[in-house]
């Protein structure tokens, strides 16, 4: 808000100065554009400086023993470890990363399919919704992380990780998508009913397409939650993956290994977030 206000003010000031000039108003507009652009550049520059300062401080503080390097590690050590792990054949960082990424993709795909499927079922059959509603509330409120040991015992080391990802992500997906379905514009539904649509057509022609934005929003939350589920699952169960690497690193007190894994995690979650943003922009073009 305040940002646009300031931009507005800057154009007003500019107008006052240049109003004397009887020629076309384009110089004012150009200077407006210049101000907007230079402001954008300044923001970007400040962000880079902040990142630079963060890494510099992280590097310098342990080296001068302002903090204990065993506890915090430092960027150059992380980079060295990263290169080491990249060359390592049986403990390769890319293999671990891929395991985590692949588990996350399977996790959120499963919980999207299960979540949207269940939401459709509940929308179709109101009686079922009324019956299961209180159970869903309990299931959603329960901290799913508490289930990790049970899943491990029941499902073993591979399936328990997927189960964890799904357990964390699926209930919120059901609740979000179902409430989106319920809030479908009743007039749009009325319209297709007057055109003779049956329930199946109402679902296909109105409810599903009008809820694409809701489903994209659910997917966005899903990806984040599935990643949480996978990491927590790997803490307990896995022989591979970034979660396994983090737990292993902390058990042998190699903070550099832990920090490397966390950095990798930051990178892949950013990439996934950007991918979803891109998807959102593509899909939402006509849903404004």
């Amino acid at each position: 808000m305040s940002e646009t206000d300031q931009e507005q003010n800057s154009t007003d000031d500019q107008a006052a100065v240049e109003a004397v000039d009887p020629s076309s108003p384009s110089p004012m507009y150009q200077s407006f554009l210049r101000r907007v652009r230079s402001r954008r550049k300044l923001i970007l520059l400040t962000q880079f400086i902040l990142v630079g300062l963060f890494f510099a401080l992280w590097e310098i503080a342990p080296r001068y023993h302002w903090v204990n390097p065993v506890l915090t590690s430092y960027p150059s050590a992380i980079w060295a470890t990263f290169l080491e792990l990249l060359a390592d054949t049986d403990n390769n960082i890319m293999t671990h990363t891929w395991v985590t990424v692949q588990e996350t993709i399977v996790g959120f795909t499963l919980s999207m399919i299960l979540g949207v499927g269940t939401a459709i079922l509940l929308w179709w059959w109101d009686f079922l919704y009324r019956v299961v509603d209180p159970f869903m509330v309990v299931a959603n409120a329960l901290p799913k992380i508490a289930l990790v040991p049970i899943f491990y015992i029941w499902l073993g080391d591979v399936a328990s990780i997927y189960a964890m990802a799904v357990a964390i992500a699926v209930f919120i997906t059901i609740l979000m998508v179902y409430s989106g379905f319920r809030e479908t514009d009743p007039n749009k539904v009325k319209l297709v009913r007057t055109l003779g649509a049956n329930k199946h057509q109402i679902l296909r022609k109105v409810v599903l397409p009008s809820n694409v934005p809701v489903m994209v929003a659910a997917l966005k939350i899903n990806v984040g939650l599935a990643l949480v589920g996978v990491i927590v699952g790997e803490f307990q169960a896995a022989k591979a993956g970034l979660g396994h690497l983090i737990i292993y690193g902390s058990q042998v007190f190699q903070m550099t290994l832990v920090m490397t894994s966390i950095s990798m995690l930051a990178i892949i979650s950013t990439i996934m977030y950007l991918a979803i943003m891109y998807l959102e922009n593509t899909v939402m073009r006509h849903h404004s």
Partner: protein
Amino acid sequence: MATQTPKVELRDIDLRYFTLEGETEALREFSLSVSPGEFVAIVGQSGCGKSTLLSLVAGILEPTDGDVLVNGAPVEGPSPLCGYMLQQDHLFEWRSILDNVVLGAEIQGLNRGDAIERAKTLLRGYGLGEFMDHFPHQLSGGMRQRAALARTLCTDPEILLLDEPFSALDFQTRLALSDEVSEILRREGKTVILVTHDISEAVSMADKVIVMTKRPGRVKAVHDIVFKETENGRPRPFEARSLEEFRNYFDQIWSELDIHVGN
């Protein structure tokens, strides 16, 4: 014989809504008969059950008691004979204008190629030929409502149910569009039931105006609207608004509606 059978007939309709809080009587002993090609307007205050009437004719609502007949046959669910136009255009924002217009044909399982041809003809006729591949958000309110009219007419219904179709538009667009729409519907010989709270709109467009009481809705008065014929036949709605008869009808219906302001 065809002229003897009313196009739409409602006989002694009672309608009640039930909720846990209680029951609401929306319509009581409501009867109405509309001849083929007739343009009937129903006016009444908000909440008098006007829109409910259209839902009954459209077959998306069943009366508690009484009969709804279309072409002499009882209504059993939505039928392609009726086209419904709502207050807002409700164009689907994820479909192009052309895809919106063929929606009805798609749902009724009609031949898609024919529907597209018909949709294109209609859109061109309404000055939307260049906007077929546009999306609804790129069109103005008046253009959107014309696209909605094309969507309604694309399945070629015999009866049009208009539920305050102009109320969401600004005043100028509203006048222009009511002219345009009434001309199109008369030219195509459609039977029209228009529901509105706008007395001017009802008097200027319709052959017959039915005034409804407050809830439970009943028929309070029926007016046959007759204007002096011009050389082009019935005056257009816009012209009708400035005629002597218009004011008389308006004043009479206004007094019947029993609207109290600041009471």
